[in-house]
């Protein structure tokens, strides 16, 4: 009994983190049509930022890290991505790939490659269904759920979100209606970067921090995005939960590498059957014409 509760809690914990990363990845893919390979490395930057700021109170460090993420995203969009939009899908993908290498090696140069760790701000345990589970993880899961709920609410119900979705749907048309693509692109990329950085920062106290930590999150996050319809923003969140659910199930019975291989096989099968991804039934209410 307690074994399965433990597995369930772990599943919720990992899906929450992945959902945040997948959401930001889906945001970038949907709006900028860019496969951002650097997303895992952005998480890594978040973790290192928390490590560098470990002297500050946790929440302050988190806030500073989020701001660093916004700035980093802005700089990357203005400094690198903006110059390759018109060179096509491949050039943007490679540019983010280069950004990833630079981030990884830059961090390795500054902090060395040896593993780092930071303390969890909350050290208590909460007993859930007979299992003592770390208080910190539960608080973080709740935080991410609230954050994603707010973001999705904004995306589907606010005028800002309407502009965003209009721009995702058709950049040219949206720009005709006065939605500047440059501004939306810069805003979206900054926000998505900050969210990935935040995800890394939140996970940081629970893992060993090293320059390549982002890689292990990258593949599942992409799986989550790939199985949902392109341009959908709620899709990657649902996709993240689905991917982690299958992965948790497989891992309960199998060695982790075998589980990952099977997960990959399932993904390949999925792509053959549903090349455009699933349109999750979470449909927004019809907008009032205004």
């Amino acid at each position, binding site marked *: 009994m307690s074994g399965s509760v433990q597995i369930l809690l772990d599943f919720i914990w990992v899906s929450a983190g992945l959902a945040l990363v997948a959401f930001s990845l889906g945001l970038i893919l949907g709006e900028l049509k860019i496969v951002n390979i650097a997303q895992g490395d952005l998480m890594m930057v978040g973790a290192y930022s928390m490590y560098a700021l470990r002297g500050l109170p946790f929440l302050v460090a988190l806030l500073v890290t989020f701001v660093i993420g916004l700035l980093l995203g802005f700089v990357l969009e203005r400094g*690198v991505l903006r110059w390759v939009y018109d060179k096509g899908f491949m*050039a943007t993908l490679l540019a983010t790939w280069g*950004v990833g290498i630079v981030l990884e090696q830059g961090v390795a140069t500054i902090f060395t490659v040896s593993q780092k760790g930071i303390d969890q701000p909350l050290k208590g345990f909460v007993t859930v269904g007979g299992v003592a589970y770390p208080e910190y993880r539960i608080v973080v899961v709740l935080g991410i759920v609230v954050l994603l709920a707010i973001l999705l609410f904004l995306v589907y119900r606010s005028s800002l979100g309407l502009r965003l979705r209009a721009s995702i749907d058709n950049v040219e048309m949206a720009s005709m209606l006065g939605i500047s693509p440059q501004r939306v692109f810069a805003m979206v990329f900054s926000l998505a970067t900050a969210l990935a950085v935040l995800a890394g920062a939140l996970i940081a106290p629970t893992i060993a921090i090293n320059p390549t930590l982002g890689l*292990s999150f990258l593949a599942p996050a992409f799986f989550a995005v790939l199985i949902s319809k392109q341009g959908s923003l709620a899709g990657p969140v649902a996709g993240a939960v689905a991917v982690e659910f299958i992965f948790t199930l497989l891992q309960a019975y199998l*060695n982790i590498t075998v589980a*990952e291989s099977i997960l990959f096989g399932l993904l390949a099968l999925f792509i053959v059957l549903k090349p455009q991804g699933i349109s999750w039934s979470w449909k927004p209410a019809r907008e009032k014409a205004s």
Partner: protein
Amino acid sequence: MARTDNMVHNPIIAAKTWRAFQVKILRREFGATGMLNSGRVIGLALFIAAALCPFYLSEFKVGLIGLGLTYGLFAVGLDLAWGRTGIISIGQAVFFGLGTYGVAVALVRHGTALVGGVIGVALAAILGAFTAAVGLRRVTNPSTMAVLTLAITLLAEKVARDWWSVTGGSSGLYVPPLTSTYSYYYTCFVATNCVVVLLWFFVLRRPLGNRLTAIRLNDRRAEHLGIPIFRERVVAFTLSAVISAIAGCLSAPWMSSVSPDRVGIVLSTQVLVWVAVGGRATLLGPFVGAVALTYGQDALASSMGNSYLLMLGVLFILSVLLVPNGIAGVFRTGPQLADTTPKGAAESHSPRPPDTGEVLTAAAIVKRFAGNTALDGADLRVEACEIVCLIGPNGAGKTTLLNILSGAIGCDAGTVTLRGERIDTAPPHRRVAAGLARTFQIPSLFPGLTVAEHLILARQEAGMAVPLPDAYARLERDYSGRRVEMLSLSDRRSLEIAMALCSQPAVLLLDEPAAGLARHEADALAKTLRTLRDQVGCAIVCVEHDMEIVRDLADRVICLHRGRVISEGTMDQVSANAEVRRAYLGLA
């Protein structure tokens, strides 16, 4: 027949034929005047420098160059997919690593390296074909292939770490040291050159090579020229996996140990950098990038450590931003396509037997876009040699119907029959083979290619070189060396029609051929198209808004409105129809 026998049995004639063949090849590769372009001069110089390097470099440095050469071949493999065909692969090291592990496992177990290598290459071919077949279908998003290849390389590294009994886990397999660096260097050198020469003569200078370039430049145009893009992409990716795996086999003896990073993401990254920096879609570029950076890494890594990789990352970003064609791209001046125009086929190929009766029928076509019904049971019948014009207000479904006829999109219900053959589920290239050709509303051509190269592609796909009708032969005569970006809009439209005509289609689909033309050009168009129909003997289905042209051009006019045919007949009959008038005035 008798001549052929002579050639085989008479050694003197055979020698002469061989000589003539050599001259022909030299002419073709180096131009009739024997002029070399700058890229080839540098290539030759580097080739000689590499061939002689054991005479002027230390044994250690020769080993480094040897490893660099195998990395170069690895990069050539990636380039075949990425640089030539435009398929992204961010996990290419998997294929390389399969070759390396294949040889290493064989060596460690005292087996034959060749057997291990062959198994490794075979596995790479299977994995490559599988990945491409999953990720490169027409309906798949372009991001899919990126994710799949990334996932494979991450996964492969973990498998290599975990599968102790075969791969030796994290510490890897210790490969016995080479007995002679120099002799292995030459083995590597010769093997690498053999693969490159085979690639050059059997892929790149063949129709297949041209097809890959066409797919990279404009896949939609390529498939509407009759190129099976899915199949050719899978072939290209599989070949690229095989070449990378062969490079992996050759590299194994250079390494003291073969560890999981041989299949991992860092090596996959590095090979992308080599190709990007060296130059895509060239043979020299990948080698220059790989050898220079392998050599540089050894020289700098000890003093710079991690900053070397950091520098590499910055270099990569800069090369993507500033020199998208890489170092070799600066020098290359040769044409992008091989001349594969079928020779002498024009006479031997009998003209298509003239059609009679209905050549194209579309019945009860329904097409919905996310709940919006574009076509709602549209019908169309086209007789042989007939010119049918489709008219209708904006959003009537004219272009959608054309797209369904040509196979650019599928339909939700209904049938399309071409010369008695059901084609509604066939991909565009099959429909071209069955006798359909089309143009697009905005001319769809291959950016960067010349007029002559466009016609080479069209004729190669048609399998014959029929002379163009007078109105279009002009293009070939006057502008053959001109890139299509330099042509006027009307010439670009003419070129598209000329390409379509190369396949001697039974039905030619034109999407607004007069849009954007000057008045006098538009006036001439109707006459040109009618003459064309008489000369070629094909039916024409034409979407057109300009009623003057429709009146001059059409044998029969069909008016579409809200996805249905509302009127059909001569221009006067249709324009007199009350429903048509309502549709155009928006009163319906």
